[in-house]
């Protein structure tokens, strides 16, 4: 399996080069080649997932490959490795990336006419970057992949985007770059702390698992830890994006080509959450525990605010972009609840959001290809004219609003359950009211989510048929329902949407140990900060806590 991961990650890179070679053969050859490469990558990833040992210990990297990369610099003992490996967290992210890439290639099939070889090349480079980010086991390697993903997407938006593409591309690029600079400083601070005499390092280690275990034994002092946490936060929170650092996202989405939106929403946003789970939470548990209420407030603000702004949109794509802000708020909420249910729900929700929002962006692209507009007001009653497209739209909408039986429910339910558990039994007396408020507000976000999505569906797909006037000067084929290629682009997503909905256990079990390990430290810290309050149970804090508990639970 070790070689397989290497092959999976590098196949798109090799493929990008291969595309450059077949480019003279024309657009057809290029896109078929791109499809073959993405399908091949997905098959490799699927094999990796299928052979993942369910009882793998959290830290042990599956399919681990490494060699010394930057060797001995004379005065400093640098230990930078080229290390790739998968655990229960990276596993699903790699699978999701590989899956969404096939969709991306298929939705670009007809839409991209201009410089197709370059486009597909960029797409494959982007896949290379994403797969690399999620399987890198070394901080330098991670950071290189982390920044590398920006470049192909910058070009995808900047070259093949809509009217305002240049502004959107540079805003996206600069905003995320500015944040990730701070993240890099934070990561370096972690490395240097682990090198310091207090943690007994004799060489500058960049290996992620090793740093995690070192920091668990020798935590960074509190003040510094918070500073480092904030530095990491800058990059990751912008990437997520966490409210109020989200404004680059709707712009980038609206301007990006369909494939760009699918990848941006489906994969790239997850890097932020992934970063929190990989670095901030396990390496800086005390800071994470202290900052938990703030992070939760930001998350829930994102949930409500994203939903409300989505409600006010007149452009389908921007609406879905804002819905991403809301959904990622759920992911962050589950993560920062620091309960097993919440964290697992959060990771599952990352996958779910990738599937449902990826599918929704693909569908918006299909509508745009037909009508050259995304104005909600110019549509109506498309269900009669485009029944298959509408069926898919309804399915992805149901998935997005967390309808039971589909994937979104499993994630949201676990997240909210985890959050509620934290608020009700895992918080100190002072924190309990505000955490409860957060939990209840988050649940109400589910109502709002159903509102804006169903409102969209109603306006665009139901009611009497209304279509925008297609310009007469272009020689358009009559507007037809989805063709086989488009169905094939969406069908794999539907398979997983239903699968996760019916048996989330298949997806939760592999991530169990990894997430347990990643959050074990922080859970301890949070519990230390907030002694368990439960009615009728004498708490270590004595009478005061008990009295307040009684006050909160009258008569219990």
């Amino acid at each position, binding site marked *: 399996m070790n070689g397989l991961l290497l092959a999976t990650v590098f196949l798109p890179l090799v493929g990008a080069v291969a595309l450059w070679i077949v480019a003279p053969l024309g657009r057809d050859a290029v896109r078929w080649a791109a499809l073959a490469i993405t399908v091949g990558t997905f098959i490799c990833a699927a094999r990796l997932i299928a052979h993942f040992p369910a009882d793998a210990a959290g830290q042990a990297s599956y399919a681990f490959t490494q060699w010394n990369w930057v060797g001995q610099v004379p005065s400093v003992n640098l230990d930078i490795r080229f290390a790739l490996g998968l655990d229960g967290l990276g596993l699903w992210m790699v699978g999701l990336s590989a899956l969404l890439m096939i969709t991306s290639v298929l939705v670009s099939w007809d839409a991209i006419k201009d410089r197709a070889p370059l486009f597909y090349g960029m797409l494959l480079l982007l896949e290379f970057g994403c797969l690399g980010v999620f399987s890198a086991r070394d901080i330098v390697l991670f950071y290189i992949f982390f920044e590398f993903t920006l470049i192909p997407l910058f070009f995808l938006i900047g070259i093949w985007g809509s009217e305002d593409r240049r502004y959107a591309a540079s805003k996206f690029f600069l905003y995320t770059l500015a944040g990730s600079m701070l993240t890099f400083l934070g990561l370096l601070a972690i490395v240097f702390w682990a090198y310091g005499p207090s943690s007994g390092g004799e060489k500058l280690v960049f290996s992620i698992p090793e740093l995690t275990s070192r920091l668990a034994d020798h935590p960074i002092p509190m003040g510094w830890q918070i500073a480092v946490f904030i530095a990491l936060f800058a990059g990751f929170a912008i990437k997520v994006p966490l409210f109020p650092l989200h404004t680059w996202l709707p712009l980038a989405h609206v301007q990006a080509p369909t494939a760009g939106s699918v990848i941006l929403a489906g994969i790239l946003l997850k890097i932020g959450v992934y970063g929190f789970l990989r670095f901030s939470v396990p390496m800086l548990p005390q800071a994470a525990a202290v900052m938990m209420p703030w992070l939760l407030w930001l998350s829930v603000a994102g949930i409500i605010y994203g939903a409300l702004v989505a409600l006010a949109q007149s452009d389908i794509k921007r609406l879905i972009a804002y819905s991403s802000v809301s959904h990622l708020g759920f992911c962050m909420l589950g993560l920062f609840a620091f309960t*097993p249910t919440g964290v697992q729900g959060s990771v599952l929700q990352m996958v779910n959001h990738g599937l449902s929002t990826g599918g929704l962006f693909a569908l918006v692209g299909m509508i745009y290809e037909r009508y050259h507009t995304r104005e909600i007001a110019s549509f109506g009653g498309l269900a009669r004219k485009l029944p298959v497209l509408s069926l898919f739209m309804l399915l992805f909408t149901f998935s997005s609003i967390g*309808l039971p039986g589909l994937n979104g429910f499993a994630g949201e339910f676990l997240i909210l359950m985890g959050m509620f558990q934290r608020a009700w039994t895992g918080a100190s007396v002072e924190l309990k009211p505000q955490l409860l408020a957060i939990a209840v507000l988050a649940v109400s976000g589910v109502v709002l989510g159903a509102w804006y999505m169903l409102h969209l569906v109603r306006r665009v797909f139901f009611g009497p048929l209304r279509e925008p006037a297609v310009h007469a000067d272009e020689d358009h084929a009559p507007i037809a329902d989805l063709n086989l290629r488009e169905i094939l682009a969406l069908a794999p997503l539907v398979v997983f949407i239903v699968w996760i909905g019916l048996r989330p256990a298949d997806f939760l079990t592999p991530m169990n140990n990894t997430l347990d390990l990643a959050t074990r430290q922080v859970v301890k810290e949070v519990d230390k900060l907030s002694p368990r309050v439960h009615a009728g149970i004498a708490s270590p804090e004595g009478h005061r806590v008990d009295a307040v508990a009684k006050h909160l639970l009258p008569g219990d």
Partner: protein
Amino acid sequence: MPQDPITLCLLLIPGLPLLAAGLAALCGVIRLPLLKENAHWPVVFALLGSLAASAFLFYEVRNAQNPNQNTAASSAGFEKVVPLWTWANIPHAYDLKSQFPEDTGPRDFRIEVTLRADALTAMMLVMVTFVSTLVAIFASGYMHGDRGYWRFFAYIGLFVFSMTMLVSVSNFVLLFVFWEAVGVCSYLLIGFWYEKPEASAAGMKAFLVNRVGDFGFAIAIFLIWTTYGTLNFHDDGAISGILGQSRISTGHYVTGGLATAICLLLLLGACGKSAQFPLHVWLPDAMEGPTPVSALIHAATMVTAGVYMVARCTPLFMASPTAQLVVSCIGGFTALLAGLIALTQFDLKRVLAYSTVSQLGYMFLALGTGMASGVTGGMFHLFTHAFFKALLFLGAGSVMHAMGGVIDMRQFGGLRKLMPITHATFLIGCLALAGVFPFAGFWSKDAVLGSVHDKIHQLDHEIEHRASSHEVAHSPSPLATIPDAQIPAFERIYQILYYSGLFTAFLTAFYTFRAYSLTFHGSERIPPAAGHHAHESPLVMLMPLGILAFFAVIVGVALTNVWGWWIHGKDSVLFAQANWGQNYLAYFLANTPSLAGGLVQSTVSYHPEFHITVAGASTLAAALGIGLALYLYLGERSEVSFLWRLFNLEGSDRLTDPQWVTRLEQVPWIGFVTRRLRGWGLGFLVAIVGYSLGAITLVFFSAPLILLGNFISPYKASYNKFYFDELYHALIVTPLTYVARFCYWLDRWLVDGLVNLAGALPPLAGSLMRSLQMGLVQFYALAMVLGAIVLILARIAWVNW
């Protein structure tokens, strides 16, 4: 293939409709007209199969729980649990610290897809599959020729699958899953004719209002999880389920505020699904869907899910008398409110819809009594109501079919000759709904009102008992947690609810027979839209009507112990002896684990039998209602318009006419004074006083009365459904829409504005720095020297520190 008949049935009942839904969808996807027109066959046959399986399951459960035949049935009732697969399992998700030692410890978040068979489930399954089979047969005629014929049957199959799963799962998460699944089927079916803007709007409204209810349900589930550390109904190994036999026998339920919170949140969910105040607003709009859907989903089955859930959670509710009181109040109030609205509606389906809301309110009223007779009585009413309300809706569908889609009762009338069979069956449905002896509704309505009666008795006993407190209670009383001071208040409220229930019975009879008279009596009027449809419906639609009418007649009396020999007292663990007039379902349901033990057991002794006084009172109320309705609406009565004027506060504006001020002068002594004043040249005083009086009247009397007369007269309030839609729009929808727009504005100008400001800083700094690069060598030299001095000083300071 499972050998065990119960397991097999449990799998077949939801499995067949799901399979049929797939086949029906396949019929539509394959573009053959022949297949599309016959898409109903798989669904009808599957539902027949499910019905047979349900009947068999009912029989098996009855046998299994009969202690005479099966020693396995314990005193905690009978249940059989069939695990299928693990939905999610998160090990060690929670360290539960509970006041109950057996609950304390680490818990896995382990959710299994598990089916259960017990009396409650078996009863619901029989009802659901029976009604859905008939509705599917009816719909194959009603929907004939519709473009979406196959789609309709695929949705119906999906719905029956979800509904049967809803009543047979054994876990709160799965209950929630199918709770929302039936909601989405309802959404799809209400918006079935999606090109009608009203239909798609109604579908969305139904879904969103239900989501508000689900908001409460979800939080209730979270609370249950954090309190009990499991979400299973049944016992799973060492972990005792929420409604499992071991917990019921130990009685380890939390009480007090937490119990009340859990129950009220559950109730919020139930209010959404079962259209109870304040979430009742979606159901009347849901009538935009095809009529068979209204009959199946919005009358007989889905809307009873809330009642089922509350009945299932009886042990939880028994732990909080306050929550039970709220359940009763919500039910009683909704019953009254919906009854009042139904009085004035002209849309036949909407009358029936409000009637459904009202009858569901009755069921909650009974459940909220917390008596064994109340829970079983509520379920009994649910059972009979499914038959006669489905009958009424299908009858309305038959009328609508003949009238070319017109359902406004002002546009047609006198249809009894045109549609004799529809008329006859509709009349039977009306009699059953109004609660006339011996139709089904009579028996179940008596059970409902009787249970409130029992509750009052129970509270009486409790007061007596507490007055003579030297006696020791034999069994723990569910009322034990109510403080002494509150007991009389509880009793007073239940008394009010009892009389309001009786009044609602009068309203029910009145609006039912008003609708009946308007539709089937008077001169024959047929709207032009009817065209050539204006004839009796085809046999395929009349047959279900006939069958349902048959059951609407007999299902009440057949399930009531009037025959004496029909049941044996030992059939039930809850009711030790058979009482005359007690419904058989009560004996059957009493073996459900939720009802077989715990506090509900202690309420059995309060007259679990037929209440002749209650029956007399409710029959009198019904007779009054029917008599009044028939008197007013058979023939052209002038009293109708008189009543209309009366309740519309017609003429109230005349009371507010300030002309009376001028008439004051005609009173002799006032006239005398004013004449004198005028005589003295002080006429302006008279004018001032007169005008002020007029102004005062206008401001303080006319305005409110005009407002009253024009907007909120009793008639207008009822006709406009007490303005709940408008209220919710003004209080929730519109403000949120504006907040949303404001947020978007904020997003563009403030949040993004700050980002852009930050982005503008580096270029600004750059342009400032650029001005330093002036090319003047002397300046550079000076800057260099100054810089060096600063550095040296800094170094010195550093060293000397």
